[in-house]
Structure formats: structure tokens, C-alpha cells
């Protein structure tokens, strides 16, 4: 059996690294927690891994803006190895703060020169929001394969409102089928606050790049690996699968089949 190696990249303030690693492990991969300093100092190289995961948290305290400092580390210190990683057809997932990092580094929606043309800004409510939301899957992305019905995941963030530079960026995302998750109600209909917890345009909760191999999303699939985490289905007995696991499994399966 081939070992699927996942780099769970953390920095000061990362805090969802352990549960993200657990999710990948349950999905069949071999995750390793790696501090960004060991990549920057070249003690370790990204090339050792098939999947790069940027977990949630508050990298550098969300100081200046969420994900900004971490994103700059990627842009100014690791750009080449990231470009190569992507060129080799490997996968990246960014969850919550990880999504903020992907967007602010320009890795999402993705362009050659890593130009930032979308952002995640302060929630319209002006405060941190921890709540469960329904997500309508769509678009073209290896991470969301097989997801048809709305899935249920928790969000927990203060800066999750998705915005684009201008209308044309939004149109391009839609045309290229890069919008992969939208906030919706239990029946899959787009809805307003609190169903859309931050006021994102067009209820966008997650996007992918043009290759469909880089996924960023604000909600936390790693927090719904077991049904026990569901706010109402905990009665559904021990260790039954939760809505978030399929995303991790998709990533692992893709690597198995394609790399």
C-alpha cells in the first residue's frame, strides 16, 4: 500500500492541526505536523508530501488581518516550492484560517503570479460567529467528489466574508466552476444570516483553483468526522461517520489514483 503523506503546516497560533491530522489519518493518510520554520529553514521540503493542509487557527494572532503574515511567508519564502508542488499535480486544502491564507497568498483562486484578487474580511455582524451551517456543494473540485446533498459543518470565525476584487473575478469563478460550497438551509436553498454567517457574496463558503486540486473553505470539515459531533445526531451511536470525512477521503483517494 502506498503511503499518502500529508503535511499539516502550522505556525504560531495554528490550533486545528491535531484534529485535521486525525481526519486525514481516519481517511487513510499519514499526516505529519510540520512547523513552517522547518520549511523556511530548508530542514524539510514540501516535495516529501502529496497533500499540503493549512489548518484553522489564528496564525500570528490574526494581527494586521487574518492569515496575512502566514500568506506572506508562503509568497516570499516558499513560492518556488509551492509552485512546483502544484505543478506536480499535488493537492492543497486550507480550512478557515488556512482558507484565509490561501486567498491572501493568491494561491486561490489561483494565478501564475500569485496575485490576490479575492479576500475574506470581517463578518457583517462585526463579531466572531461559532455556529453550524449547511453547505451546498457545487463546482469542479477533486475534494468534493460525490457530495450531492447539503452537508452540515460548524463555522467559527470573525473574518469569513468572501469578497472579490470586482464583478469580473466573481463571474470568472462561476464560469470556471470554482465555487464549491455555498451557505444554504437544510434543503439546499441559499439563505441569509445566520445561515450565511458572515455575509459572503453569493453565499460563497469555499472555492477551488482552476485545476480543482486546491480547496479553501471557511467551515470545518475536520470537526465533523464522527456523527457524535453533530448537534442533534449524537444519538446515532459511536463512531458513525460525520459529513466532513468524505472531503478528506476524496483527497486521499485522488492521490492514490493519480499520483
Amino acid at each position: 500500500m502506498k503511503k499518502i503523506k500529508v503535511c499539516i503546516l502550522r505556525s504560531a497560533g495554528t490550533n486545528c492541526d491535531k484534529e485535521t491530522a486525525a481526519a486525514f489519518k481516519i481517511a487513510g493518510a499519514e499526516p505529519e505536523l510540520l512547523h513552517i520554520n522547518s520549511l523556511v529553514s530548508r530542514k524539510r521540503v514540501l516535495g516529501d508530501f502529496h497533500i499540503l493542509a493549512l489548518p484553522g487557527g489564528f496564525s500570528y494572532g490574526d494581527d494586521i488581518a487574518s492569515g496575512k503574515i502566514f500568506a506572506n511567508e508562503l509568497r516570499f519564502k516558499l513560492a518556488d516550492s509551492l509552485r512546483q508542488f502544484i505543478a506536480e499535480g499535488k493537492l492543497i486544502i486550507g480550512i478557515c484560517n488556512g482558507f484565509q491564507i490561501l486567498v491572501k497568498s493568491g494561491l486561490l483562486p489561483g494565478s501564475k503570479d500569485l496575485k490576490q484578487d479575492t479576500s475574506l474580511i470581517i463578518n457583517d455582524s462585526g463579531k466572531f460567529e461559532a455556529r453550524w451551517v449547511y453547505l451546498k456543494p457545487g463546482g469542479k473540485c477533486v475534494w468534493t467528489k460525490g457530495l450531492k446533498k447539503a452537508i452540515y459543518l460548524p463555522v467559527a470565525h470573525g473574518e469569513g466574508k468572501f469578497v472579490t476584487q470586482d464583478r469580473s473575478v466573481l463571474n470568472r469563478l462561476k464560469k470556471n466552476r470554482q465555487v464549491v460550497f455555498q451557505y444554504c438551509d437544510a434543503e439546499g436553498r441559499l439563505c441569509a444570516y445566520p445561515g450565511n454567517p458572515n455575509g459572503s457574496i453569493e453565499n460563497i463558503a469555499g472555492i477551488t483553483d482552476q485545476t480543482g486540486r486546491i480547496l479553501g473553505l471557511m467551515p470545518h470539515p475536520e470537526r465533523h468526522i464522527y456523527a457524535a459531533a453533530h448537534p442533534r445526531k449524537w444519538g446515532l451511536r459511536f463512531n458513525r461517520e460525520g459529513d466532513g470525512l468524505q472531503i478528506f477521503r476524496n483527497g486521499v483517494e485522488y492521490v492514490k489514483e493519480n499520483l
Partner: protein
Amino acid sequence: MQYKIEVVDKPGIFDAIGQGVRKDILDLGINSVKEVKFIQCYILEGNLTENQAITICRELLTDKVAQEYRIVSSSGKAPLKANHPALSDRPVRASALQHIVEIAYNPGVMDPVEASVLKGIRDLGILGAESVKTAKKYILYGKLSASQLKTISEKLLYNKLIQHIVGPSLPQGDIKHQPGYYFNLVTVELLKATDARLLEISKKGQLFLNLDEMRRIRDYFRKQKRQPVDCELETIAQTWSEHCYHKTFRGNIAYKESRAVPALGNMSIKGLLKSTIMKATKELNKSWCVSVFKDNAGVIRFDEKNNICFKVETHNHPSALEPFGGANTGIGGVIRDPMGTGMGAKPILNSDIFCFAPPDLEFNKVPAGSLHPKRVMKGVVSGVRDYGNKMGIPTVNGAILFHKDFAGNPLVYCGTVGIMPKDKSFKKTNPGDLVVVVGGATGRDGIHGATFSSGELTHESETISSGAVQIGNPIQEKKILDTILQARDKNLYSAITDCGAGGLSSAVGEMGAELGAKVYLDRVPLKYSGLSYMEIWISESQERMVLSVPCGNIDKLIELFASEDVEATVIGEFTNTKRLELYYEDNLVCDLDMHFLHDGIPQVTKKAVYTQPRHKEPKIPLKKNLAADLLKLLAHYDICSKEWIIRQYDHEVQGGSVIKPLTGIVNDGPSDASVTRPLFGCRKGIIISNGINFRFGFIDPYWMAASCIDEALRQIIAVGGSLEEVAILDNFCWGNPDKPDRLGSLVRAAYGCYDAAKAYGVPFISGKDSLYNEFSVHGRSTAIPGTLLISAISVMKDINKSVSMYAKEPGNLVYIAGKTRDELGGSHYYDLYNAIGNQVPKLKYRESKRTFTALSKAAEKGLVESMHDCSDGGLAVALSEMAFSGGLGAEIFLSEAPYESSNPRNDFLLFSESNSRFVVEVERKNKERFEKILKGADFGLAGCLTGGNNFKIYGLDGKLCVDADTRRLKESWQKPLSW
């Protein structure tokens, strides 16, 4: 070069911060502000070219998609860029319709953003930046008078203890630029001091030591034949402070009481803690208690491989003065307790309980020198949110209560649970181990925190004790946590403790108490120069831990910390001299006998008197329809929904949450306790709950204490737990214990704790007291209501047996378990009528235990669909919450509820707050099995759930006494705090 940079949202981007401020201004009763624009400012200093400054703005400080920037000054030159109305060529000028308030931190206050920005600049390859300051600028559009602007600034935008309004003149001098410190040994003339002089020394030095203690210190130094160094005196004051030594709980008490039931009788108590709290634990002698009352947190067994620990602390005085910073550092401090327990535990959940004055208190009723309770509450919630969320610890449990007497002195309780491997649960420092300080650098912040909290707050505290106020840096603490756990698992250190109150003085003093320690104070990393040896020693700068490290491991340890940018510095060594020796640049500045330091405090006997108060019994007319009272109760601040707060806390991080603080078909009902699964894939869970009700204490603190324990336990039962492995923690927040009446009620509460803990078989494993919670204005003192928080922790064998509180299915049966008595004393129903009454809820332990055990068994067998405990507001509130959280109606017949009364009344049965009661939902098919298990306990089948929204309660006479729409009930419950 200095550059001032302003960053603002682009037009069309919704300014959520500005909007929030506008809403708060409306709350102040000022309607003329039409819009508020928020501008983030950065002041960069260093050897930077203009092009570099522009790069920093573009690549680091501005979000290109949503923001614009402008460099408004560059050492006097003209602004560089202008493309936004708020940043027009001419800087925004104040006018009658446009007001500008810019807020910056005072010199010396830690700006958590500074380090991040400097790192960000270095990452750009720009190395010349020396310092960064941030400021917040608000532009208020609308007509405002000067006094309105002052009100808005002072009541909303800044706190003068840590911030100032930036004037048109130059920024305030940077503390970094102040002159360095030149060693100067300061001794205190003590040997010949008279009593009056001794007291003066204590007062002037903010030592908070009494005359006996000062005399004892004088005698010690007379024997040494020398005057004490200031540092020695401070060390003793810290160690002997109420905060660190708990003089009241450890000392002797002469207690007298009258009229109390049960009577404790007059007695002389040798150590209140030993005679009550610790005695219960000792007598119960549970094998699963691993370490109690010894370490920074109490430790119990979790499973074969792991132990869990729990500690709850208070941070009341700092939160009164600076709510955000006080609560922020409060939670930061309690998180370090599990981190410093055993060889270090990983924090896995937080709990937060607050007491405030009502948020709608009229401004003229706010005591002089205090902040308005709504400001305090918002600040405290933000402080906890900021630290807890950034540490990645779920906040899963809490409570908030309100009473006008918390106006000058709010209560902020923060608790943290940690988990650690069984074999890492104990520590041992050895002679020769190095003293290593890890984490943040030391500054002048938080000096005198320990002694400050050992005195009463006054209207002048804000000026006198402002040094005790700090802002936390959660990311610094998170870095320490990440690295400490790695160092622990590599066995690189032999012991660990946190730097809390008293700073290094307490941490090193405690670790070296049995051995002795030598510390070189000039080796401690500093935030800025100018600190004296004494300030270094007692500074309470946050985010520091102290390790004892065997010499052979030191290089590996420092390398590990450095790999994640955490500073670890050797500052001394542990010895076997049994002396505390401190040096500064080769000068001996402290040489104390450890035995004298830790055991030399004179034993005092304090007087305590308790007289049972008699309150007026209210005359409430009999009413046929009780729906209006129910609606009012649901809107009582104590009872209403706390969703506005709970949603700001991340309760799902770490991925182990099972029973969450909010539950129901739309996740908005109030859970009783929380259930967390700390290990992935593991069947076992941890239940956390709390009991707190100061209202019962107005009648009798003895029964208040017993009821708090009952409340914490019944919440555990309500989520499917059992009494089998439950440990509890006590946190007493009381008034000045030097006043006999305050101490008398404290004694009674402590005995209530003993009796209830013994009866239920639940040991105390840790606790803390915060005394002197009084606020005086010009000598007139108001004590807070004596408040006891009982926190409970239990190991649940199987999380699949968890039960939630919301109604599940129409047609299911509704049982009421536990007997209601006419115990309306201290109830919220009486509070609606501004009365306290005298019939406080009591306990019949055998009866309660029968109910608890039976329900626990029923839940274990899977027979319980939902269960909710009856607390504030009684049966009616519990039934309503259960129904509307499940989106269902109910039909309930009061005649079927277990009820003992000489004068039965519908309102008393519905609103009494008798202990040990539950509402339970059971499927019809399980009726017989459920009733068989409950046999012998008090219970009644009181009705059933219905579809739709009708909530009907039929009274004792069979007639409808509540006929309400559940949507209306829910609305009433949700409205008061839905800011």
C-alpha cells in the same frame, strides 16, 4: 524615520467595526451620529526609505481587495498617496459634523500586534524597522457637543488605564527610549520602626501586610542584624498575600452564630479549609483522585493511560478596572494552571462564569470610578473570546448572573480542564537543576497584582493600582504550549509551574520551597530597559512559565523552544541551601530563609459572626393565569438566552464537542452541562457543569452552598451522567473577611459545602477564594453578594449515552422527577416582586440521591429522550425551554407533579426553585421500563409533548393556568440579550 500609515476600507466595503460603534453610541442615548468610519493606524519607526514604507503598506498592512492605505506623515513630509474620500489630500479635519477620535496604547502597555508586524516586515526582506505602534481612529459623522464626544470616547472607545487619545501634538514618548537602570540597592529602615511606622511602610509600599505580619518581619530582620532590602520585603508580601497564602481559609476563626438552621453552634475553627472542604475529600478517599489541593490544578483519573485536571480562577479586580484586559489575562492565567500541573497538561476545554450588574443600569447609579456594567460585560466577553479562541480551547460551559451589587466589583470566573498522560502527572525539582524562564519577556506590567487583589477596590483604585492592569498575548501562550508539550514528551525538564500572581517571586519561591534557589535577575529577558531588580522579580508580565531543567538537557531544551521562536533563558539554579538568594549584577539583593518565607506568617484568629437574616415575605395575590409571569421570568437577565455571548466563543475547536452549550432543532436551546470527547475515537467523555446562585445566600449561605452542589450535580445527571465519578471545585468570592459578618457567612457556606459533598460522595479536588470583593466610594463600602461557584467534572463512560435538553417527538411522555416544595426564598419569581423571602431551597439528600441514581440508570438504558434540570425559574421555565428548543408544544397537568405543601398554589409549584428536580421526556413504548427504574423515587407522569406551538399547563384544580404560544415564550427568552 517615522511613518504614520492609515488603512481604511474601500468604498462599498461594509465597515462592520464602524457599524458596531454606531450601534453602541445609540445605546448611550446619542442619536445624532449617522455614520462611523474606522481607520487602522500604524506608526513605523526605523531606518526605512519611502519606497520601503510603501512596500510595507502594499504587501503587508493593506488587503488589496478590500482596503486602501495612505502614509499621512513621514517625518514632516507631505502625504504620499490619496485615493479615498476619508483619506483625501488634506487630512480629515474635525468639524461640527465630523469628529475624529484616535486611540493609542499608553507607553509600556503591551501592543500584541507590534511583534507580528515587525516579523511581517522582516519577512519582506526589510530589516530597518525598529518599532511599530498601532492606533485606532474613528471618524464620527454627525452633530456632537464636546461633552457628547467626551462621553462617547470615555464610555466606549478607550480606557485611560491603558490607552490615551492621540492629540494633534507628537505621539507620547516610547518607553523603549527611556534611560536604562543603574543598580542602586534600596533597603528599608525597619529595625527601629514603631508600629505606626510599620503600618505606614506596608501601606506606602502597597504591601497589604497587617501589623502582626509587619512585626514578625521586623523581628526576623532584627535577628539577622540588618535592614531588609526592598526586594525581600516585597517577596514576603507576595508570598503572604491573601491571594497567594489564603490566610483566611488557612487561619483560625472564632465563629458565633444565632438563629441559624441547621445550627453549627459557636466554635473555634482551626483552618476553615482543612475543617470543611479538604476534610470532605479526605474522608471520601476516592481512589480515582490522583492529586488534590497540591498542584496548580486538581487531578483525577480519566482512563488507563490519561489523567485530567481542572482549575477555576477568578480575575475580578483587574476585570473591574479594564474588562477586556482583565478577563483576557484571567483566562490566560487559568489556562497556564493545567499547563503547569504535573509535567504539563494539554488544555482541552474552558468554562466561564460571570456576575455583573444589570446591563440596563441607569448611568447615574454606576458607582464613581466604575465602568458601566454593559461596557464591563462586553469587555469581559471580548477578553475571554479573544484569548480562549486564539488558544484553540473550546469554551463549552458557563453562566452569567446579574445583581446591582456587582456594579463596582464584577465577578469573572474562568476554568480550564487539561489532559495529560498518567506518567506525566507528577513533578520533582532536584538540587542542581537550572531555573529556566520560558515565554514572554518581563516588563513593568502587572506589578502588585497579588497584593492589589488582597485589598478592597475603591473609587481611586483606577489611579493607584493601574499597574496591575494588563493585556494578554494569547499567541505567545499558544507557542509556549506547543513547545512545552514537546519538551515534556522528550523528558527535557523535571518540573514546571506557571508565572501567575507574584510573578517569578511566586513561581521560583514555590518550586524551590523545599530546596532553595539562586536567581540572577539581570539575566531575565526584558521588554525594555529601566526595570529595577525588584520590578523584575515581582512583575506579573503574562505568558511566562518556569521550568527546572537538569543541566544535561539544557541545550536540547533551548534548541527546541528556539525552533518555534520561543525564548527560553537560564536565570539561576535550584540549590540545597534552603535559602532564596537573588543577585543583580553580582550584588546580593535578597537572602531569605525559605522556611521563614513559607511558614513564618503569624497565625491570626479572625472573628466571624453569623445571624440568620429575616426578610419580608411577599404577599403575591393568587392568579388564574400565570402566562404573564412566565414570560417575565423567561426574560429575567439570569434566565434569558445567552446566545449572543456563546456564539462568540468557539465551542467546537479540537473536534470533541458532543453536548454543546446550545442545542435544539435550531441549535439555540440552553444545555445543562457539556459533554466533550477529549480523544479521537474514544468512547469516554468528560462532563462539565456548574452551580451558582448567590440569591439563596441572602437567606442562608449554608443552603446556598448545598444548592450549588446540587445544581452542578443535577446538570451532570441531566446529560446522562452519574454520581459515580464526580469531582467538584469551590470558588468563593466574598467580601472583606476582616469584617465578622462577611466571614460568618463564609464559614456557613464552607460547612454547607462539607455536608453536601459528603452526602453526595463527591470530593473537592481544587478550589480558590477571592476575598475583599468590596467596592468603596469615599469610605462607604458595598460588598458583593457572597458568591460560591461550584464547578463539577465527571468522566462519562460512554458518550453515546448523552442526553440533551430539547423536546424530541410529539406524543412522547413528560415526567417530572423530584419533589417540589414551597421553597420560593431567593427565587427569581420573588425577584419579580422585589422580594427575597425566607424559605430557601433545602436538601433531603437521601431523596435526591434516589432521584439522581434512578434517572442516571434510565439514561444509561437509553430510555430518556430528553432531560432538563429545574433551576432558575423552576418547573415552568424548564418545561418552556424544553418545548421551544425542540420546536414542540406540551400539555402538562400540575396535579401529577410530586408536590409537598401545606398551602398548595399553582404559582408556587411552577416557580419554586426546589433542588434535585428534572423534567424528563420518555417514549410511550418505554413507559413501563422507565417507571420501574424510577420506582421509589418521587416522580409523576405530568403530560405529553404535542406538535405545533401550544404550551398548556393545567393547574392543581384542573383548569388551564398557562396557555401560551411557544414562539412567544422563546421570543421573550431570546430578546433581552440579543445585542
